[in-house]
């Protein structure tokens, strides 16, 4: 498979998935109980000022009493014109709102992936080199335990440790240049734990392989054999695992951004659902889907770069 094929396939996938998830979210929001106009009015004006009359005005303005089919067709027509509409709460174009938030999320996602891709494989490789040893056993147990902790709890623990007790890092917001560290670590920890196990198993299987034994037999040191034959082969399953686990990253973004008041698309999605801001929900869900596809495409390309047999 060529690079162009991968990109073309992912582009087609992006279009289909975007339409599918935004349509699904449209129906899910319609299926929710309660009055959408009242929710939008409350988000705009605050709960104290909301009355049924204010909600009626919102309903008329946003055409919320339109039949489902007409509203959906109108949405599709606008999407085909690359128009995601305007937020029901802020009246700002969804594209503007999402592009700002997406920038924050990408920054967070890249930072957490960077941490996970350095820490996970490194620890995993050290475990895989001496399987069954104390280092391996401790990290395998730790990885299993860490993986079981939900990001929300982990984030709270990190805030207590690094912000409250040590006063070393900001607890939330984006006011300081170090604000990214705690949310990025929170998001990275689960991915790192998984990577440790995969990298360890991958390297163990490499070191037990015939070609690795041959490399050592012909006189290469452990380091030389690893660099020339081990790492590249072990990197293939690790990269494939990262591609699969990106869903975990996207899912974690919602909880982590909300906890750390990080103004990304996860944070925006929660607020949009709360306010029943359907155009914003569709826009953020589409952005998340596209982000997932883009990162998956990058993972595919990385595998292609690592493994020449797949080209």
């Amino acid at each position, binding site marked *: 498979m*060529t*690079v*162009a*094929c991968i*990109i*073309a*396939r992912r582009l087609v996938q992006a279009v289909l998935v975007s339409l599918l998830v935004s349509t699904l979210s449209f129906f899910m929001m319609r299926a929710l109980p*309660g*009055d959408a*106009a*009242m*929710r939008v009015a*409350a*988000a*705009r*004006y*605050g*709960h*104290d*000022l*909301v*009355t*049924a*009359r*204010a*909600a009626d*005005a919102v309903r008329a303005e946003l055409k919320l009493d339109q039949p489902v089919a007409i509203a959906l067709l109108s949405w599709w027509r606008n999407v085909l014109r690359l128009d995601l509409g305007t937020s029901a*709460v*802020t*009246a700002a174009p969804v594209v503007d709102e999402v592009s*700002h938030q997406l*920038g924050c999320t*990408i*920054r967070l996602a890249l930072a957490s992936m960077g941490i996970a891709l350095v820490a996970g494989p490194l620890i995993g490789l050290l475990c895989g080199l001496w399987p069954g040893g104390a280092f391996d056993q401790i990290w395998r147990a730790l990885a299993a335990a860490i993986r079981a902790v939900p990001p929300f709890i982990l984030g*709270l623990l990190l*805030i*207590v440790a690094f*912000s*409250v007790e040590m*006063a070393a*890092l*900001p*607890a*939330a*917001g*984006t*006011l*300081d*240049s170090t*604000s990214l560290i705690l949310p990025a670590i929170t998001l990275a920890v689960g991915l790192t734990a998984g990577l440790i196990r995969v990298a360890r198993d991958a390297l163990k299987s490499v070191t037990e392989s015939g070609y690795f034994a041959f490399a050592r037999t012909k006189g290469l040191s452990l380091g030389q054999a690893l660099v020339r034959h081990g790492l590249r082969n072990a990197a293939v399953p690790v990269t494939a695992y990262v591609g699969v686990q990106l869903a975990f990253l996207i899912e974690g973004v919602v909880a982590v951004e*909300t*906890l*750390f*008041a990080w*103004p990304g698309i996860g944070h925006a999605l929660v*607020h949009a659902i709360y306010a029943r801001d359907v155009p914003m929900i569709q826009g953020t869900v589409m952005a998340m889907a596209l982000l997932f596809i883009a990162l998956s495409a*990058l993972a595919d*390309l990385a595998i292609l*770069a690592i493994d020449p047999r797949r*080209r």
Partner: protein
Amino acid sequence: MRAMIDLCRLPLDLRQWMVFIAIGAVLLLPACRTRTSGTHSPAKDEILVVGPWEIPSLDPLSSGSQFMRMQVTETLVDAAGDGTVLPGLAEKWSTSSDGLEWRFELRLGVRFHDGSPLTAVSAMPSLKRALVEPGSLALAPVERMEASGNEIIVRLKQPFSPLPALFAHSSTQILAPSSFGPNGEVRSIVGTGPYRVVSIARPQSFTVEAFNGWRGDPPTIRHATYLSISRAETRALMAESGQADLVFGLDPASLSRLRANPHVRVEAVSIPRTIALKLNSGMPCFQDVRTRRAISLAIDRARIARAILRDPEMAATQLFPPTLDGWHNPHLAPLATDPTQARMLLADAGWRKTSKGMLDLGGACSSMELLTFVDRPELPLLSSVIQEQLRQVGLHIEVNIGNSGDIPLGHRAGTLMIGLMARNYGIVPTPLVTLIGDFGEHGGDWGAMNWHSPELASLFDALIFSPDGSGQAAARERVTEVLQSELPVIPIAWYRQTVTVGQRISGVSLDPFERTYRLIQIRWASSPLTARIGGIQ
């Protein structure tokens, strides 16, 4: 598909593709507009205010309260902590003898943050926006509003004595003409307050600095930032870590921990918000006032306040909390808890035991639905406690937790049976405007339902139509007596705004009407560069 095949044939190798992707990603990567990316760098002589309220837009109807709380914008009328209206941008006001015309005379020498002078003409665009619902002026029978010299003239269709209080609401805040775009949309916040906006990172934060053209004494705190954090746990941890100087909107669970923290001071003020049960008095179940009184007697407010709100003083003894001076009636017999008397009243009202051991009234009230919502997290908990307390006197309640909009919708459709809600009687400095809407002839979304008192209606008329204020105290007292006796809504608990104050500032005082954070009164406890405790240096 053909395009896909063509793409597959593009003669580029992997490295070229990687370069293209990297360049594309950099170009397409949208900015995460944090302050460190160019708008503002944090200063150590700056205080950080944290609260749960976001800034979805710049429209005063939507986010105006935040800019007013940070003292960026002002209104014609100000309010004291006890609800007394005070001069704001209007130095004084008067009404005609028939009560139909009001004149608000503007303070001289006031300048907007852009240097332009405040005039009656420049104030009009801001005020006219508030005439549209849910702007506060929509609550008054305004016929027209115009600028004349240095005065704003408001012509009414009928007398309306609480009009000045409406001009204290954030929806009437005065913005400079330069704040508005060609279509009337708000593009920037240019106010007249002691602080001016430096940067806004919607929906999360904005930074202000002292305005040198402010007409009063220059503020000690020269820089401040407001940061919105939606999770109560995170806000509490921000306070605990010393990173925020003022933290609003704390949950009861965090308060006991924060009170034990020597680096944080907890301040509290009673606010005019009441948790109450709204009853559909048109239903056979609640038509009889004895039933409503029995429900009130069945509820143990002291226990609820202690266990759920973690503040025993918040148990409501009447509808209005003590902070509503002039409306809280100290002579009223407090709402009591007496399940035995509650059972007797229910028996008198005709409630009889069914085969299941619970009470019913004429076969229509064997099970009643209580609707509440999650927007205020304490309400679902309270609903469960009330359900159990009512069960103990024989009333079977089904709790349904939905959205806040379900109560007004149920009111309008006539389907609501019981609603558990929190009502703010301090939207403007006098609760009269809210009460007229809630307990008028047709009731209100957040008030009475299918209940009407001719006496209350005449008392409201007396309060609205008496421009000289004669007899107002007696009328107000009688209003509270009627509401306490008839119980169209049953008060459960009051609210207290709890705020943490960091150690490096002093002079913090809280506004019960939540109109302002009173930044201008805050002082540094010591040098701002050395007094930061536990925070990021």
